[in-house]
């Protein structure tokens, strides 16, 4: 639709002319511009998806002939304890990796929103983790987590706390990985929320001060509701990132110990590229995609509802 005015300007015609010719002229001028994009989208998005779905309906092991098996690969999923565990791990990992950076990021944003000496420098320092390569970070953290030689247990010992096993024990591995994720991605949340804080009006705060509100009351009843839309954006970005997180987990634990930190993504990778079971791997990919879409839909729905409330409240 947007092409029309340009086309009209180009031909130097008036709007009324164009409306009359529209039906005749549109196909030859419109399609050539759309076609490249359409081909690209079909080739790199639609086709791979259709092909993945097709593969998931086949018994397909690299090096062996393929055979159509219908939904057999999907029926294997609920009976595969590793897959069921992986779903659970993914949900726990995602929940923690969204909640913690969100809480700490908001806190950091509130702190960095205040004026104090060296603020710019410290802000720069604070967002450094975000710029580092995940695999490099993972390797450094692996050594820091080492129960005997790592610096974390040394730091704990300084304050008299007992040594931990971090990523080397099934019970603490996911929280430890989330620690890395939180360290790396808290700055992102901070940046988003900081942007939100900068855009806030000052009047509500002035009137709150006159009414004698405390700092906490101002945060709870003014700041938080006003930055909620920004928090939603941050939560959405974090959720999508966390649910498909691969590099940090793979480089630090490869899903271990045992399969205690194996998320769907890691299991999917093993099945498809280590066991070469392409058919089953594709079925996992399809289900994984459905889970991501479902989570994103829930978030979008919540956001939509919030906006509606906002509009309602304002009217």
């Amino acid at each position: 639709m947007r092409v029309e005015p340009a086309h009209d300007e180009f031909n130097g015609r008036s709007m009324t002319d164009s409306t009359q010719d529209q039906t005749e002229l549109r196909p030859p001028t419109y399609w050539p511009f759309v076609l490249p994009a359409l081909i690209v989208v079909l080739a790199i998005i639609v086709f791979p998806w259709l092909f993945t779905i097709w593969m998931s309906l086949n018994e397909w092991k690299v090096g062996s002939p393929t055979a159509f098996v219908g939904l057999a690969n999907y029926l294997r999923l609920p009976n595969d304890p590793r897959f069921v565990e992986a779903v659970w791990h993914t949900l726990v990992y995602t929940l923690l990796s969204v909640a913690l950076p969100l809480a700490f990021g908001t806190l950091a944003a509130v702190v960095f929103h205040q004026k104090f000496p060296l603020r710019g420098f410290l802000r720069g320092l604070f967002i450094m983790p975000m710029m580092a390569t995940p695999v490099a970070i993972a390797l450094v953290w692996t050594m820091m987590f080492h129960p005997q030689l790592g610096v974390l247990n040394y730091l704990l010992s300084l304050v008299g706390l007992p040594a931990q096993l971090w990523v080397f024990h099934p019970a603490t591995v996911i929280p430890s990985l989330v620690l890395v994720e939180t360290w790396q991605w808290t700055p992102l949340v901070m940046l988003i929320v900081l942007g939100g804080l900068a855009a806030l009006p000052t009047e509500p705060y002035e009137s709150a001060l006159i009414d004698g509100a405390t700092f906490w009351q101002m945060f709870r009843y003014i700041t938080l509701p006003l930055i909620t839309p920004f928090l939603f954006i941050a939560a959405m970005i974090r959720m999508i990132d966390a649910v498909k997180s691969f590099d940090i987990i793979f480089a630090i634990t490869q899903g271990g110990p045992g399969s205690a930190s194996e998320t769907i993504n890691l299991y999917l990778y093993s099945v498809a590229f280590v066991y070469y079971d392409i058919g089953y791997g594709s079925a996992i990919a399809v289900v994984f995609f459905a889970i991501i879409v479902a989570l994103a839909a829930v978030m979008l729905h919540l956001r939509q509802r919030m906006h509606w409330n906002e509009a309602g409240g304002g009217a």
Partner: protein
Amino acid sequence: MKDMQISRRAVLAGTAASALGVSALPARAEVNWKKYAGTKLEVILAKGPRGDNLQKYIKEFTDLTGIQVESEQIPEQQQRQKAVIELASGKPSFDLIHLSYHVQKRQFEKAGWLADISGYMKDPNLTAPDLVESDFSAAGLSYAKNDKGQLLSLPWSVDYFILYYNKEIFAKAGVQVPKTLDEMNDLAAKLTDEKAGIHGYVGRGLKNANMTLWTNYFLNYGGEFLDAKGNILTDGPEAIEATKSYVRSNKSSPPGVAGFNWMESLASFAQGRAAMWIDGVGWAPGVENPNSSRVVGKVGYAMVPAGPKGQYSATYGDGIGIAAASKNKEAAYLLCQWVVSKKQGARLLQAGGGVPFRNSILNDEETRKGVTLPQEWLQSVIGAAKISKLGLPVIIPVAEFRDLVGAAVTATLSGADPATELRKAHEQFRPILERSEKA
């Protein structure tokens, strides 16, 4: 057998490059190394000392043959994936492949991805007289040949498991090298000093990686991987007893061993925090490197202690083969031959980057003298060669096997019952194995 090799080698060495040599072997033709001059070969290598050794000296091969070689080293896991995907496509971008026998043997054989080189080996125009099948160790040949007896690759480098021990800790406690796994477990408990941060033992606990260590216990407890019908046997009494022993060893391990791969184990041992460590012979350069190790010169090398049913060293290995789809098979064969040649093998051994499968290299006095690592290490390698046994079952789903049984073994480290865990893993793995053989 070995004596025969030495004498053949001695005879050949004595007559090398002389007219006598030709007249003594009238039926032997000379290898025409220049036959494929101008050909270009592509090699896909797993990253590591073997790949380094090839790339470092490849110019010598080009000078000898006039063949240009392009090679790339890719980290092991990624190299395996890339190779499999390309081979399955039917048009691999490489002529030669560096393969891990203990992971890929059965898969490659079943898919028919490697060229049969049995004929080349018998052709005097292509094969130097000193390269004969009987020069390779039995483990190497069983890796390189398929069940029809066709030779599909040349065995390149073998990895035996040995016992590394800290001589300083041993001397302080006044103890001897353990002869059996039971002795080792008792000793490990004795040498553990939690307050000083010293543990009696360290070894891989991480799922999948731990299987290469666990099989040392399994084999020494009399375990066999498969029965005559090809059923997997890793939930039997041998496996259960072996796992119990493995768990006992790890009771004297540093905290968090359930997440240790070789790297973390090596770090513990090289920092002097562990008295004993069972792993591949190939890590010796790491523990003897003053830049990364605090135990240089204090490391003892011994064979894996015996179990109640024998003494074996779990063995793994890699080889070099030619893609069945390659258009330059004979030229590629010349390169295979050069890769496992005495000169290249000696260099590999002397740098501690690997152990050639060829007895004539291991038994060569001159080569042995050039070994930079302690002679004790070399002795443990030679000793391990005599008791070597394949360390993993020869099946297609090796990775699944290592993951599932490995996870069961890891679980036992945090107190789970070995019999229950192994049975559970067995139940999960059996259908996978059946599917793989049916396909």
